[in-house]
């Protein structure tokens, strides 16, 4: 029979993995859902929107359980504050995915096909940035030296996202067939998606400080 300390610790480790896998899974779903939207398959899009909702709820539940475990079982007392912050920041990324999907669903932006590829590219940059953040976090818990190998990729994808977003916004505003209100609506979406990469970058900036604190 395993003692309660060992059980709590193993359980927490598994739940952390599950939480991070959830964030990673949400990225894949986010890509698929936006693809469905661009292709006009609204039925499939709505299904994925609901799935995203479920993932977000599951993420929230896991975060609460983990926070509860960390405090009641006094796990990793010296890094608890950092781990809690990391959890909340990762959860915010998941929330951002969901918020983008819901904005698509509520506002139904009319994005001309000529911008779809740029949007797809912007989405891929954001998802990749988040994916690298997830890998950095996993390394933080497992093999701290490995974390840096993923963290620089986050910066790369965030920069890529900035480039694509700037290019896309220029193209939007230089298009003479669109009304200004239309242009601003599409631009808002581009900026909202671009923020995913920015937030991922903020997470790894804090993560690098947690790593310095943990390195003995």
């Amino acid at each position, binding site marked *: 029979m395993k003692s309660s300390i060992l059980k709590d*610790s193993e359980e927490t*480790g598994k739940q952390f993995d599950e939480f991070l896998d959830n964030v990673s899974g949400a990225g894949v779903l986010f890509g698929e859902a936006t693809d469905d939207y661009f292709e006009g398959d609204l039925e499939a899009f709505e299904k994925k929107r609901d799935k995203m909702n479920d993932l977000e709820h599951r993420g929230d539940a896991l975060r609460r359980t983990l926070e509860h475990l960390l405090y009641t079982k*006094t*796990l*990793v007392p010296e890094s608890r504050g950092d781990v809690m912050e990391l959890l909340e920041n990762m959860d915010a990324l998941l929330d951002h995915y969901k918020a983008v999907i819901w904005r698509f669903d509520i506002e139904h932006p009319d994005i001309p096909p000529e911008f779809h590829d740029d949007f797809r590219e912007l989405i891929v940059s954001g998802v990749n940035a988040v994916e690298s953040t997830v890998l950095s976090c996993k390394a933080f*818990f*497992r093999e701290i030296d490995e974390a840096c190998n993923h963290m620089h990729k986050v910066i790369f994808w965030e920069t890529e996202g900035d480039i694509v977003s700037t290019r896309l916004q220029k193209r939007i505003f230089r298009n003479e067939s669109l009304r200004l209100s239309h242009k601003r609506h599409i631009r808002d979406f581009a900026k909202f998606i671009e923020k995913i990469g920015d937030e991922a970058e903020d997470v790894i900036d804090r993560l690098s400080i947690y790593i310095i604190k*943990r390195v*003995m």
Partner: protein
Amino acid sequence: MFLFFLSSGLFLGWSLGANDAANVFGTAVGSRMITFKRAAVLCSVFVILGAVISGAGTSDTIGKLGTVNALAGAFIVALAAAISVYIMTVIGYPVSTSQGIIGAIIGWNLFTGTLIDYTSLTKIVSSWVACPILAAIFSIILYKLVVICIKTFNVRMFKLDTLTRYGLIIAGIFGAYSLGANNIANVMGVFVPVSPFRDISVMGIFSLTSAQQLFFIGGIAIAIGIITYSKRVMMTVGTGIMKISPVSAFVTVWAHSIVLFLFASQGLERFLISHGLPSIPLVPVSSSQAIVGAVIGIGLLKGGKGIRWKTVRGISVGWVTTPLLAALISFISLFFFQNVFQQQIYKPVEYIVSAEAIERIENKGIPANELKGMLGNKFPSAVQFNNALKECSFLRHDDTNFIMESTEHYKMKITDTGIRSLDAEWFTEEQIKVLEKLEGQVFIHKWMMEEALAGISPSWRIKKDDKLFNRRLKGKIAHIHDLFHASEFFMR
């Protein structure tokens, strides 16, 4: 009456539990890796076990430093140590009972004119310097090893958290056992020569010597100190004095425990001696010194910037002040106890240069020509006899000790009443028969009676490889010394 006098030792035990337990589990509880309840239970149990099972080694050294041979004297010595530790704790210096008790015994020695065994004193004081240095070295080595292990086995954060918790529990248990084994001598050591207890057998499974019974009581006092008062100190050690990570806490507690164990283990001493290696003296060292040394070790390893040297200086001053303060309190209290309360705080020990003693000294190969000139002389105290011996320039320090032991005047008469009062369960039939054969005989030195007994039967002889038998035999001999010494007084 004995229990009343023992109360000062129990007070000392309580303060040991309240303060020194923090060195063992403080960092673990302070960093919330282990709950106080769990730490208190584990610490109490293992302190008692350490005291009873392995407490004998260091108490022998304390005994050598000065045999406090009267109960009231032992009471004052323990009280002086407890008060000095208490005062230093109130002022805020982390000190140990080791320094208090040694200072208090020196105070007793000075007051009673008993000879201070400078060999033992030097051994103890040098161990106080060696202890933090050794702890620092151990913590540096252990820390390096732990870091290599963590990197090699790629231990993940939560697994490391679990392993650290287990490590802290095991280190704490080991530390508590070592603390009990090493420091019980501080609490109960001075009462051992005046203990009224006899060896007892517990349901025929194992037996407890008189000293072990005393150590058990002292262990309980320490445990009460841990349960009632150590929480605050543990929180201070764990969070207030220094901020160290759980892994560092684990390393420091291990280094501390290893050092305490090294200075308390009779088994290790035997092993080193049997392999021709230099042995570590069995002396009661300070657990505070060990933990401070271990933390400084980690601090130095990390570049030394995190160490608050001002605090370290303050602690060092406390280590020097405590024994001096204890000696002073002991000396003044003994004066009051003797002159105001009319209590016997020591039994005067006389020395007589008898023909038998000279013969024994000569047989040992020590030139005794100058001693022959003193034949029949009596010396009222060890200091006076020692001064007389100093004039015999050819004597070495070891020779002096042997001469003192051979000439100690302790008149005993073996009487029928005394023999009949012996417990038949404690003394064997054979041993009692030997005593009956010697009935009516008078001895003026302790060794004479021991030689007479050993000459008649092996049941009174030291056995080469039976440490337990020898320890029990020592207890029995001490008992009959007292018994027939008293009989001798009745005869007068």
